[in-house]
């Protein structure tokens, strides 16, 4: 009896340890969010932060309200992530359909392995690849080469999430389409894909969020820029690059802007994540009906 009581309390004790470690795991999340919000808010509350571009550092006699902003970086991030999405999302969706619809084929295992490995490939190596492929031959940095690097990052995410969403669709839907005489491509693209749309959109959104936050692949492709540029053939600033460069400079005014840019970035990325969560919930409800 005594031994059993001890076993009971040992078990309870370890359960407590597990919960404590779980709490420990969530502390960094709280701290990152807290510091980004409190340190970033003073910069973000001024509307010019979103519209103006970089100004030279003004230490030690900074004006009370700085006129500098990260407008060029926000626009740059939107352009580059947009271009990357145009490249990666259609290819990723078609690749994912192949994996889900013809998943037993031998080749599909290689595609799966390739995309799982590509997800884990260091983003800086992808940046080097884009540099060698698109910066070296043209002799100048360009936003386009940055978007290609981001597209390579996004591609395996879109592929695997599309595969997951499409293979959730019950075979009855495909069979009824085929029974009505629809060709295979129309069954896949007009029947199965729309049914899987929420899951596919979730994957695309997650990949966009991942690309928007990446710094390393842009360092020597899009490079960075002090002013607003809209031409993808020129060097361009992006929000993560702004945070990286400003944070390491010894000027308080620029560090404050780095925190502001980090706050904008985190709101964008977490916002996209929460939206994708909502979309995914609709997929689950939809799959339940089918």
């Amino acid at each position: 009896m005594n031994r059993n009581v001890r076993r009971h309390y040992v078990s309870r004790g370890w359960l407590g340890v597990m919960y404590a470690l779980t709490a420990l795991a969530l502390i960094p999340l709280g701290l990152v969010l807290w510091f980004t919000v409190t340190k970033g808010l003073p910069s973000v509350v001024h509307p010019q932060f979103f519209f103006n571009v970089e100004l030279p550092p003004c230490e030690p006699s900074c004006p009370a309200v700085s006129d500098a902003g990260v407008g060029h970086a926000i626009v740059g991030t939107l352009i580059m992530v947009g271009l990357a999405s145009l490249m990666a999302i259609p290819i990723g969706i078609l690749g994912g359909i192949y994996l889900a619809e013809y998943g037993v084929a031998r080749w599909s295992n290689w595609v799966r392995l390739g995309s799982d490995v590509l997800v884990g490939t260091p983003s800086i190596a992808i940046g080097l690849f884009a540099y060698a492929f698109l910066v070296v031959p043209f002799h100048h940095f360009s936003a386009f080469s940055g978007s290609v690097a981001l597209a390579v990052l996004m591609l395996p995410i879109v592929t695997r999430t599309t595969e997951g969403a499409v293979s959730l669709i019950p075979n009855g839907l495909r069979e009824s389409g085929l029974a009505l005489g629809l060709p295979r491509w129309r069954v896949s693209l007009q029947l199965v894909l729309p049914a899987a749309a929420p899951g596919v959109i979730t994957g695309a959104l997650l990949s966009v969020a991942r690309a928007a936050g990446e710094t390393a692949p842009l360092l020597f492709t899009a490079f960075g820029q002090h002013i607003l540029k809209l031409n993808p053939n020129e060097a361009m600033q992006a929000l993560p690059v702004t945070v990286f460069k400003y944070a390491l400079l010894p000027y308080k005014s620029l560090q404050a802007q780095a925190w502001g840019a980090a706050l904008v970035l985190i709101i964008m990325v977490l916002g996209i994540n929460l939206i994708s969560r909502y979309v995914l919930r609709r997929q689950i409800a939809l799959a339940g009906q089918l």
Partner: protein
Amino acid sequence: MAVGVEARPAVAVGARRPADRFRTVVGVVSSVVPAVLVLIVLTLLQQALPAIKQFGLKFLIETDWNPVTDSFGALPAIFGTVSTSFLALAMALPVGVAVAVILAEPGHPNIRGIVGIGIELLAAIPSVVYGIWALYVLAPWSYEHLEVPVSDHATFIGWLGAPAVRSLFNAALVLAVMILPTLTAISRDVIKAVPRGLKENAVALGATWWETTWRVILPSARAGIFGATILALGRALGETIAVTMVIGNQYVIPHSIFQPAYTLSSVIANEFTEATGPIYPAALIELGLVLILVTLLVNIFALLLVHSASNEARLTA
């Protein structure tokens, strides 16, 4: 009637041909993914060729990094990458498995929901935000409350001495936070895949929650958790920006984990845009090549482990 019966196979044959074409089209599009992977490796190999020719295998064991005299060796960067990653893994593993056990446990759905969302958000935070946080909050705190007290109490242990704010240890600390979601998500799936019967048998024999978890569930999920660990190792090896911001960027093999160091990816991130001449950029790209080959091997090994673990679970279930 007979006409109708004859007409049907004709339609079916006609419908099959575009179907095969569709299969070819999506199959070709899907091969972009492995093709890009191969292309990345080949491109880096080709770009690194001048350095590979000049230094050969000596590149991997030399410790010098001097763009002025064009003498380059990768050992300090390799040491930094490997040591930060393993240190991070050692810190993250117990926490990650604990969270996975809690997440896989039935009961307390509210706590599970909150923890699950929290871990997913942890995975979503961009690396550069971890970097700025580590640089201004985590590293100064860790210097004051971990590094200095530890080195004061362990003066006789050389590799715990000479604390600095930007150090190998602090880089490992932020890495540990960043790989935690990978570790947790996969370990949770593996633990969930453990056949219910095993657990029920243990409980029926009178085992407590902890005895069931420690002696039955975790041992049968061992291979998969190991796979998750290796996968997290791959992420840690490749992580660039956050590490670059806190590791201190000193191209040496430090004598203490509280001293500044450098990693493969950080050297590339800091020096590549300023690298000129024939050999310097090629040497940096060779660092990238070493990095990508190591992570490739680590990832493939981990994927095989996770796959065979989940297959085994499916077979025994």
